[in-house]
């Protein structure tokens, strides 16, 4: 069963492998300077040679990512609920949230450093800042999509607004929420790396920076590979949690067209 699950990702591996091969050949053929785009094999061996250092930096980044993402999730949901509370608050707060997404790190960094120093806090703030927004937007849109019949039913029972939120609108918004969370999770690792650019002693961002400044492009790419793997991992975790958390949803929703096809041609 489990083997089968993994085997079903075969195509992903085949495609990834094919792309890596093309890339390798492209670089090996000398079409591009290895100092601009190193070959996968170069990256791979760089990764292996420096694995313990990279691991050390990775753990730091992972910690920032997970803490940041967790806080962003809580904050995103809180914002959603807050904005849902009244359209006044919504109209007042939403623009501010949007604006918060447009502040470049270059303006924020000195402030963060001065207010919070070089510890883990500013990195977490950056992750939160980058990740709460997709959660808020998706979750807020999810809340708006509540089924009217169910809503009226609860109103007829004189459920108060919190009960309606808790019993109806939040559960109904969960699929949207997970959508947003998936987007946020994908961004979170990159956000942590960004946060490290603000100033840090350790972390993949610092590693990338050091490698760039030392013109060790293969190590930059090695770190990117790790970043990509972390992002994939987080994305996968979120999808798994969704699968476990929403059994009812998978019952009442249609899967991909593929499934439709499978159903049609089933033996």
């Amino acid at each position, binding site marked *: 069963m489990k083997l089968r699950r993994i085997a079903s990702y075969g195509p992903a591996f085949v495609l990834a492998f094919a792309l890596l091969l093309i890339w390798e050949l492209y670089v090996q053929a000398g079409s591009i300077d290895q100092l601009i785009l190193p070959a996968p094999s170069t990256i791979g061996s760089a990764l292996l040679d420096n694995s313990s250092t990279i691991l050390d930096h990775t753990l730091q980044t992972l910690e920032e990512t997970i803490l940041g993402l967790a806080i962003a999730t809580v904050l995103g949901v809180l914002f959603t609920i807050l904005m849902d509370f009244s359209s006044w608050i919504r109209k007042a707060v939403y623009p501010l949230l949007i604006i918060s997404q447009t502040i470049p790190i270059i303006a924020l960094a000195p402030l963060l450093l001065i207010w919070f*120093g070089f510890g883990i806090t500013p990195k977490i703030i950056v992750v939160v800042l980058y990740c709460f927004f997709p959660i808020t937007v998706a979750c807020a849109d999810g809340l708006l999509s509540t089924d009217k019949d169910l809503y009226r039913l609860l109103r007829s029972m004189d459920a108060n607004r919190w009960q309606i939120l808790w019993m109806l609108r939040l559960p109904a918004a969960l699929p949207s929420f997970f959508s947003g969370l998936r987007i946020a999770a994908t961004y979170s690792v990159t956000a942590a790396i960004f946060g490290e650019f603000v*100033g*840090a002693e350790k972390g993949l961002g*610092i590693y990338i920076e*050091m*490698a760039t400044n030392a013109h*060790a492009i293969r190590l930059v790419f090695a770190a990117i590979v790790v970043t990509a793997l972390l992002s994939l991992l987080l994305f996968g975790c979120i999808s798994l949690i969704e699968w476990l958390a929403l059994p009812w949803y998978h019952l009442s929703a249609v899967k991909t067209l593929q499934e439709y096809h499978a159903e049609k041609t089933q033996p």
Partner: protein
Amino acid sequence: NTNDTATTQTTAGSKTSNQKLTPFKVALDFTPNPNHTGIYTALAKGWYKQQGIDVSILPFSQNAFPDVLVASGKADVGISGTESIVLDDASNQNVVSIATITQHNTSYLVTRADALINSPKDLDGKIYGSYGAPYEIPIMSKVIQHAGGKGKFRTITLGTDAISALRSKQIDFAWVFNLDIVGAEHQGLQLKKFAVTDYGVPDYYSPTIVTSKDEIQKNSDLLKRFMQATTQGYEFAKDHPDEAAQLLINTAPKGTFPDNKLVIASQESLSPLYTDGTQKWGFQSDAAWNGYLNFILPTGSVQDQKGKVVEAKNLPASALYTNQFIQ
């Protein structure tokens, strides 16, 4: 049980020695590199401790200038450069240079070695890869004009480093430190280099060690002790480049230097430049500062907080540096 006592002892031991040490923060202008060797050497050799200072080197921030950290008191000293200090003063940021790391300017206009360019005058109409700083264009123009060109070229502002843009042949020339050239050549990119000081640009100081006026007022003694150890460090690095490079490698955060050979090569190229034999390490002259001010201010590229061009009379060199910490 034995373990237990051992740990207690060490903590107790370090505590007592810590109590005497004054914490001191240093903000770097870049990831650790041979410009910083003196500081790392002093750190590694324990010379700061001897002075009763507990130096910690702040992580490099891509997004916050050391000037800002120093001015806001988040760092005691930082690494900066003449160009930046002048801009700081123009915008009322109180930053003072207290030592120059190299006695002479080590920046170069570079082109690819395989480009058909023999003199900066051939660069008219070519593409310059800029960092986006206001003083670059006057300096590059000066170099080209000095070589007989018009000094008119196209400017592309890069977010990435100029070396890789040169490598990808997307720009024709850039302005870099000698260290960058050593790095590029180490990786097989041959460059043609023109020292800007050979082309009419005054020989000003970059990089330098900076602090704030407040710090000088409040912690003059501390700064003196810091500079004493630092001087010791740079003197050592000047005399023992390989050993100092090794100390830099060992002391800087793990992973800073993927290629030790490059560090040693860079250090070997830089060590001789720390002093020129005529002055103590770190000494700054009025002439160098005025040279830059007299060059840059007339170009109008230095503006104050209101956006007004700063004139020479409002910006005396004496306000920008001090030699009081040079022994």
